[in-house]
């Protein structure tokens, strides 16, 4: 048996019987990209000399953080018992923020490799994606990776996987993406165990979009899985959600570099290029059909991406505002989930309120903006979207505390999530304490194995967007993992806490909190600001207030001495240069009323203590 197929099946003319579509479900760090690298090499899809680590992760930030943000599909040739097969590996994003994209990737497959680190066991997000795959009736191939690690416990985690998906621990494959051990056997198993795709070749074409990527040179590249019919070059295609039509300029497969083909048939996975410039015109989850012979029913499952977390992004240097504006415009070309609108803050100047899928999406976007556009940004504390009903029945959506209405509020609803936490059982107490503090309601608890539990909570989203994950990690010595999904909303007793410096409200520090936590927030923020704001020529009271009621108070004592004792002949040049430096420093101050607040104070006040500690290291 030769591992490498001698003649790879030709796209557009491939019998569905020799196609296998699969994805890899894995947690960050569990070695998905490395395993994918081995598959690329083993099948000869990538020449040895072109190989680089994490080949499929295209962005630097993906390689650095070891996560996949955008998924991709690769067609791999593989021969079993003299038959050449076409394997389509659909890479999936590995983070909770991108659950919807994961679900579309799963919907494009018949099977999934459940890849778990043999030294760590399954994590919450992997479990969530596994359940998703099982709901979609995917065939699961359980695999333990990194069996070469000294800390690997293959027997223990094989039993865990077997109990999760049914079957025997011996059925769990043992591989090492690093050394390549077991990868050939895995390829064979994919061919043997996964069902071939089925579909009607004569029906009107239907293909599902599972990813869409903006490329500077080619415009939007859309990744699809054909379910029925056939797509051909130069044909006019139609997006079923919008009825928009485009000419198919190019169609082909990734192997992994793009290779144009004569089309794509039933069960095939490939890419389309239509010349559109914005991923919003080619939405993940949408169904592609042809204008000449349009399908009547879409494949279903399409959702508009819904931003869950909102944060104000402000350039540190106000003159960078146009750069930020252009950068965000470019980013949305490739990120259908990113929404933004201009916003003005009295304290921070001109910026944007940006909506994200979650915290990681926020962090990555901010980091890329800073890196790729050389920007220094302040991001305000993340917020969720509240629905405020006024006594006159008027309903407002509030994503920014400064827009929170003053006056007669009948009801405030906040978004809820159902969260799943996996951790060693010894941490159950600490986790429950944390979730209770965060207004969580226990949904249930199950033992995955003797010493690992799955805990389910319903929590307000607002309680988990700031520092919840960091705290969970520190309370479980790094072993805890979290997954969450939106779960409706609920009426809550929420208030807006304002922070006043010398009587002037600083909008950037306002927060919407539960009434029971308003005092704690006020004490925390006024205390932080007292440390962060340098003494001024006058005393500066710092107050936290709900409406007109002061709930916490601190004060920065006036500076009493700001004079150099000696200024003689030899000191003058030095003193003048010091003065110039102080004037430069003043430019980095934001004036709040008469109070000079250093930019650093905004950054430090708006970041969690946890991330400040990280920055110190």
């Amino acid at each position: 048996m030769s591992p490498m197929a001698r003649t790879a099946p030709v796209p557009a003319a491939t019998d569905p019987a020799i196609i296998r579509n699969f994805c890899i479900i894995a947690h960050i760090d569990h070695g998905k990209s490395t395993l994918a690298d081995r598959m690329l090499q083993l099948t000869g899809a990538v020449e040895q000399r072109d190989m680089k680590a994490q080949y499929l992760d295209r962005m630097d930030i993906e390689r650095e953080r070891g996560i996949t943000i955008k998924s991709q599909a690769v067609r791999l040739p593989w021969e079993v018992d003299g038959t050449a097969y076409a394997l389509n590996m659909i890479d999936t994003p590995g983070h909770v923020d991108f659950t919807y994209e994961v679900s579309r990737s799963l919907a494009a497959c018949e099977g999934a490799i459940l890849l778990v680190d043999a030294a760590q066991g399954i994590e919450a997000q992997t479990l969530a994606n596994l359940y998703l795959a099982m709901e979609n009736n995917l065939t699961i191939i359980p695999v333990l990776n990194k069996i070469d690690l000294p800390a690997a416990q293959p027997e223990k985690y094989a039993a865990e996987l077997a109990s999760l998906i049914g079957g025997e621990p011996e059925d769990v494959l043992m591989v090492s993406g690093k050394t390549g051990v077991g990868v050939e056997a895995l390829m064979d198993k994919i061919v043997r165990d996964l069902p071939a795709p089925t579909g009607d070749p004569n029906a009107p074409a239907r293909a599902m979009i599972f990813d869409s990527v903006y490329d500077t040179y080619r415009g939007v590249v859309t990744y699809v899985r054909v379910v029925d019919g056939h797509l051909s070059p130069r044909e006019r295609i139609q997006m079923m959600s919008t009825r928009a039509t485009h000419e198919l300029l190019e169609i082909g497969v990734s192997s992994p570099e793009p290779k144009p083909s004569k089309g794509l048939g039933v069960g095939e996975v490939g890419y389309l290029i239509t010349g559109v410039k914005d991923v919003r015109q080619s939405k993940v989850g949408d169904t592609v059909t042809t204008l000449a012979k349009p399908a009547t029913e879409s494949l279903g499952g399409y959702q508009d991406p819904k931003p869950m977390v909102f944060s104000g992004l402000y350039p540190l240097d106000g003159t960078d505002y146009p750069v930020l504006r252009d950068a965000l415009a470019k980013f949305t070309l490739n990120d259908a989930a990113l929404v933004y609108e201009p916003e003005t803050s009295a304290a921070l100047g001109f910026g944007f309120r940006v909506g994200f899928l979650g915290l990681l999406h926020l962090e990555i976007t901010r980091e890329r903006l800073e890196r790729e556009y050389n920007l220094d940004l302040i991001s305000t504390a993340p917020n969720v979207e509240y629905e405020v009903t006024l006594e006159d029945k008027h309903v407002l959506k509030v994503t920014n505390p400064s827009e929170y209405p003053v006056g007669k509020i009948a009801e405030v609803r906040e978004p809820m999530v159902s969260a799943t936490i996996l951790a060693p059982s010894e941490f159950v107490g600490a986790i429950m304490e944390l979730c209770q503090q965060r207004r969580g309601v226990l949904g249930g608890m199950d033992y995955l194995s003797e010493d690992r539990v799955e805990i389910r909570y319903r929590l307000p989203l607002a309680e988990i967007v700031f520092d919840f994950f960091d705290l969970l990690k520190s309370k479980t010595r790094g072993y805890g993992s979290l997954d969450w999904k939106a779960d409706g909303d609920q009426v809550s007793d929420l208030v807006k806490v304002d922070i006043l410096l010398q009587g002037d409200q600083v909008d950037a520090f306002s927060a919407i909190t539960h009434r029971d936590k308003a005092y704690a927030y006020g004490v925390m923020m006024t205390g932080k600001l007292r440390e962060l704001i340098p003494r001024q020529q006058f005393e500066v009271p710092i107050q936290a207030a709900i409406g007109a009621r002061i709930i916490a108070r601190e004060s920065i004592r006036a500076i009493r001495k700001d004079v150099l004792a000696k200024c003689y002949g030899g000191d003058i040049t030095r003193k003048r240069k010091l003065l110039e430096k102080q004037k430069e420093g003043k430019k980095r101050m934001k004036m709040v009323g008469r109070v000079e607040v250093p930019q650093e104070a905004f950054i430090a006040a708006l970041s969690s203590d946890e991330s400040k500690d990280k920055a110190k290291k």
Partner: protein
Amino acid sequence: MPSALPLGLPAPEDGVLPPSAAEGASDRAFCLYVHIPFCAVRCGYCDFNTYTATELGGGASQDAYAGSVLAELALGAQALEASGVPSRPLSTVFFGGGTPTLLPAEDLAAILRAARDQWSLAPDAEVTTEANPDSVTPESLRVLRDAGFTRISFGMQSAVPHVLAVLDRTHSPERVPQAVQWAREAGLKVSLDLIYGTPGESLEDWRTSLTTALSYGPDHISAYALIIEDGTKLASRIRRGQVPPIDDDDHADKYALADELLTAGGLQWYEVSNWARTPADACQHNLAYWRGSDWWGAGPGAHSHVGGTRWWNVKHPRPYADALAAGRSPAAGREVLSDEDRYVEDVMLRVRLREGLATDTLTTSGRRAVAGLIADGLVEPAAAFAGRVVLTFRGRLLADAVVRRLLPD
């Protein structure tokens, strides 16, 4: 290590100044500063350019030092002439250090004589030397008086032994009244330098130092907040937690006490850190710095200023001596101030003085800032209406902030 020199333009070997330096020179006073870079021991707080005898040798020794200074004075007179700066009699001469009185009084006298030969002394010229109370005798003081010295400034620092110990000062407090008395007998005016805010110094310690200093009846007292300079022994002791750090509020309290006791003792402030019995007792030499006069600074590391050109000599006594032995200017670098720089310096220096800063020299934005400074109690309203920006007591403590508000952003 003594503090670093500024970065600037290179200075030419002949010391000749740009033409702008000569403009309006005849309307400006001309002064001389002579730096004596020697100390018996190095104090833990000091970042001045000074060396102990054991750190030096060869042509840079104390014995040969006066010769190098004489060479610089000759070169200076030539360079000024070549630059078109008219020769003016010296209004003031100031010997600073280091410890000038570590040199034999005859050496100091010889340097003063050479300066007089080059430029002549104005009839009422003030000639000061700094001194350590330990390093003077009735005889040496008489030699100085006879050579033309009019004033002596003793580094008393504190009257409290444990404070002196933290500062590494070797003199015993009892030496000060004796030295003051000898100086008086020799006919010299006396100034005392005090330092406050030394780690471990209580407010009562400081009160003791002030009342003790006043009891000696000096004509002038300088009181400086201790500045912890990078690279000093005291800075590293604070960093290691061996002595407590400096507290600005403590400094403010002690400044208030100084101003109160010195005023009650018959001295009046004329600059942020200086008090004098009568206006005539104010240090004319230091006033020249603050008023933007011209001065030649001789000696290693000394700074000079003539008509908007500032320059500074090489720091170490050896290359200093070598340059002069080879007939070259010892200047290490210079800067030619722009009009804007000169304005900034003028505001920064004059605002420290009781005579203040003329409001009509301020830019429009500076004049606009004055109202706010009056409202904040930092500037005297009556003086401002009379056309001068004069700091209030609170303003003196926040003088740097006042300067920043007077200058354009």
